[in-house]
């Protein structure tokens, strides 16, 4: 069975992983190897399961990028975007549709190894990280002709601040200084360690658009990305190449369309029939068929998404730590992955994955031990019955956080004496209930959580942590202290230590169970070249994509 972890290690990237001393867990060394392979890998970034398919690299590409933008690429979206506004976009559909519309001040390098300037040419930060100055790239204009300058950037950030709960990315900005048109300076309330990283999510739009208001933006968004907005209907969003894009010679595709196809089976059929070119996040059961298809191939890369089983501490059935530990021990993650993963994916014993700041194996980790689980349940004494919540439909959830996985988990819990049923909730209900203090909501939450900034921003907002304050104030105090310390410590070994303590605390309290990580597998038509999957499942950039 093909598995990323067994890819030939001839890349020479035998970097040792920072293993926790005394940690009795498996090496993640091969993960690092694979990750490095990608970083050094061809721009094509097409990594397939070992031995099975023909990996494509730019060296062996059958055609070179065209001189002028040609061709149409159609991407299938699993759900309609909630909004095309850079400040309000949320969810897979919205990000995929707008990632090529908006540029950001900083962006991820093609291998997703580091953050590089995009709309800037460079940046500096004060030693105490309370001030941050970026040099604005000259000659950039928005799709409506407005030039990019500090006033425009300031307008954008003020707009973001007006929607301050945007994607839980904190923006503790004291002042924004746009006195010089070619530089933008931020002053923060306190040292802001992750600002550079978090900038990768904040798309810049035209100040003229912002002043026209949210409805105008929804109907005609204006950014500075390689593609500009043409039109939008219920099922189709059309973009076209922006002729005055600052990165001359890009993009290579003339038209970029996003077709909303809710039904996952229909998306695959359409790809196989040649009607669309890209299907994001393909179910692993289809990956092999697509990899060998006459007209199709896959692009796979280790992702930054981890599937978790989160506990809602305010729900009585799981407020006892022994129940949570029993659940953790009851789940045979290997068997689950074998049945559902079709050879892809890896079980994880960490909250993070390689590439995320502070990645390390967690201590303690809960292995498959049904006897122990049963013993714990017996200790608790009463009959435990609970509900596992998943997102209904496919729009934002990965399949490993979907129906089959949840049913399998329910079955495993049943085997140790916990009665579990699966509750498929609609998006809005799912999100609302996840954060609700109501003890009647579901006890377990199967979620696919992306580390979408490559850094630890999520620590402030994971589901179980919200409940911790109410359920266990002492632990919450320890947690808050560590969390505050972490957000003040710059990247480096010291930060890794703090993150390690934070993760260990979460693990010892059994707040959340990391299950596996699945690579980002995107389905492509055979003629799509230059495609690099986005580890965050927020949508890859099409700057370098062409048909050939």
């Amino acid at each position, binding site marked *: 069975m093909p598995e990323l972890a067994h890819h030939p290690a001839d890349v020479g990237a035998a970097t040792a992983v920072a293993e926790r001393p005394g940690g009795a867990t498996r090496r993640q060394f091969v993960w690092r190897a694979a990750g490095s392979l990608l970083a050094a890998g061809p721009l094509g970034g097409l990594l397939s399961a070992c031995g099975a398919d023909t990996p494509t690299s730019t060296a062996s590409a059958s055609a070179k990028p065209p001189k002028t933008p040609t061709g149409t690429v159609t991407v299938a979206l699993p*759900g*309609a*975007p*909630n*909004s095309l506004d850079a400040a*309000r976009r*949320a*969810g897979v559909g919205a990000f995929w549709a707008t990632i090529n519309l908006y540029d950001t001040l900083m962006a991820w390098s093609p291998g997703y190894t580091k953050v590089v300037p995009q709309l800037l040419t460079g940046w500096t930060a004060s030693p105490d990280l309370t001030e941050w100055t970026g040099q604005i790239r000259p000659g950039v204009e928005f799709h409506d002709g407005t030039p990019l300058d500090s006033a425009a950037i300031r307008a954008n950030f003020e707009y973001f601040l007006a*929607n*301050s*709960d*945007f*994607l839980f990315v904190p923006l503790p900005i004291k002042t924004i200084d746009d006195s010089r048109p070619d530089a933008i300076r931020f002053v923060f309330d306190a040292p802001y360690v992750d600002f550079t990283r978090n900038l990768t999510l904040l798309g810049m739009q035209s100040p003229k658009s912002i002043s026209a208001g949210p*409805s105008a933006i*929804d*109907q005609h968004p204006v950014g500075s990305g390689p593609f500009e907005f043409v039109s*939008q*209907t*219920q*099922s189709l969003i059309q973009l076209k190449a922006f002729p005055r894009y600052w990165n001359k010679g890009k993009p290579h595709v003339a038209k970029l369309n996003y*077709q*909303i*196809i*809710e*039904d996952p*089976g*229909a998306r*695959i*059929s*359409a790809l*196989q*029939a*040649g*009607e669309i070119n890209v299907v994001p996040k393909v179910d692993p059961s289809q990956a092999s068929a697509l990899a060998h298809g006459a007209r199709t191939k896959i692009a796979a890369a280790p992702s930054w998404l981890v599937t978790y089983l989160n506990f809602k501490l305010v729900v009585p059935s799981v407020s006892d730590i022994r129940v949570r530990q029993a659940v953790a021990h009851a789940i045979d993650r290997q068997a689950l992955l074998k049945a559902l993963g079709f050879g892809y994916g890896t079980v994880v014993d960490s909250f993070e994955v390689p590439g995320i700041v502070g990645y390390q194996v967690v201590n303690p980790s809960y292995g498959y031990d049904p006897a122990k689980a049963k013993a714990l349940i017996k200790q608790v004494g009463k009959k435990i019955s609970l509900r596992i919540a998943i997102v209904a*439909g496919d*729009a*934002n959830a990965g399949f490993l956080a979907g129906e089959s996985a949840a049913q399998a988990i329910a079955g495993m819990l049943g085997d140790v004496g916990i009665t579990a049923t699966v509750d498929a909730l*609609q*998006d*809005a*209900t*799912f*999100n609302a209930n996840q954060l609700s203090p109501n003890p009647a909501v579901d006890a377990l939450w199967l979620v696919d959580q992306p580390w979408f900034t490559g850094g630890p921003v999520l620590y402030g907002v994971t589901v179980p942590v919200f409940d911790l304050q109410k359920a266990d104030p002492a632990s919450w105090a320890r947690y808050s202290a560590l969390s505050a310390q972490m957000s003040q410590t710059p990247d480096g070994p010291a930060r890794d230590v703090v993150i390690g303590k934070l993760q260990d605390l979460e693990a010892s309290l059994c707040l959340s169970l990391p299950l596996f990580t699945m690579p980002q597998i995107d389905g492509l038509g055979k003629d799509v070249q230059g495609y690099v999957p986005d580890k965050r499942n927020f949508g890859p950039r099409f700057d370098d994509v062409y048909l050939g």
Partner: protein
Amino acid sequence: MSTLADLAGLESGEHEAARRYGRYIGWRLAQGLLVVAGAVVVSFLITNLSGNPGQVIGGSFLSPQQRQQIIDQLGYNRPVLQRLGSYLAGAAHGDFGTSYQTGEPALRVVLTALPNTVLLIGCAIALAVVVAVPVAMLSVLRRGSAGDRSSRVVMMLAGALPDFWIAIILVRLLSVNLSWLPAIGFTSPQSLIMPTLALALPLIPAFVRLLRGALLDVVGQDFVTVLRSKGFRDRFIVAHQALRNAMVPFVTLLAMQIGWLLGGTIIVEVIFAWPGIGSVINNAVQARDVAVIQAAVVVVACGYVLLNLAADVVVTVIDPRVRSGARP
């Protein structure tokens, strides 16, 4: 030679009939309007089933501030009756609000998708009729034989297959494995073939059953035996005399089926990503786009009413007996 009075008498008789007919049609129209008004109210009820739509509109990932902003913007902070009132007032002149997703007027979103569904339904009905008529006639001519009975059962089995099941198997076979036909969307006339098949198959047995029953009635009557003895061929008899009799209930059944299909194509449209009303409804329900859901319900109800009215008119044309003022 008819006197003027005779002429006048004849004309007044016709006038009388025409006036009564006109009243009948007018009465049916008024009823139709009442039904549509009821549908408008029901559309409001459906979307308010689980509480204030403002709580769920737009779906996921909205902060409390953003949600409140949207609630205020769209007026969901007003009391229920007030919302109902303004909704009814708006609906009266075609304003169902704007789609949350695209900002277009909700009615326009629905009406843009409507022709695609109508086309699909039209093809499905046409296919079903084209298959049902000869099958019914054959069945009547060969009635009682083993072949007839077994073919009836086979046909019924074909009609018992769930439409979504047929759809997914067709897609897998014809589109993915054989690449004969396009899998999704409406890109070419060939795109019509599979969804039409999926929709038409369950209809055929119902049509055949009705036609067969009506044909059997006629074929059993004495006058047909007489005609037969004169040497007309069976087929001619069955075709002409009998079909006419079958038309009235058939037309009415057709209208009901089309009306039902108008809102019943959701699953098939989803599977084929067909850009019709079914997809619009499915998208709107997923995204909680309340305005579009409401507009769709009303449009489909209007379609149903119009279809039944059209069926009534056609029935009176076919069967003049109904025309002479017979009240329902």
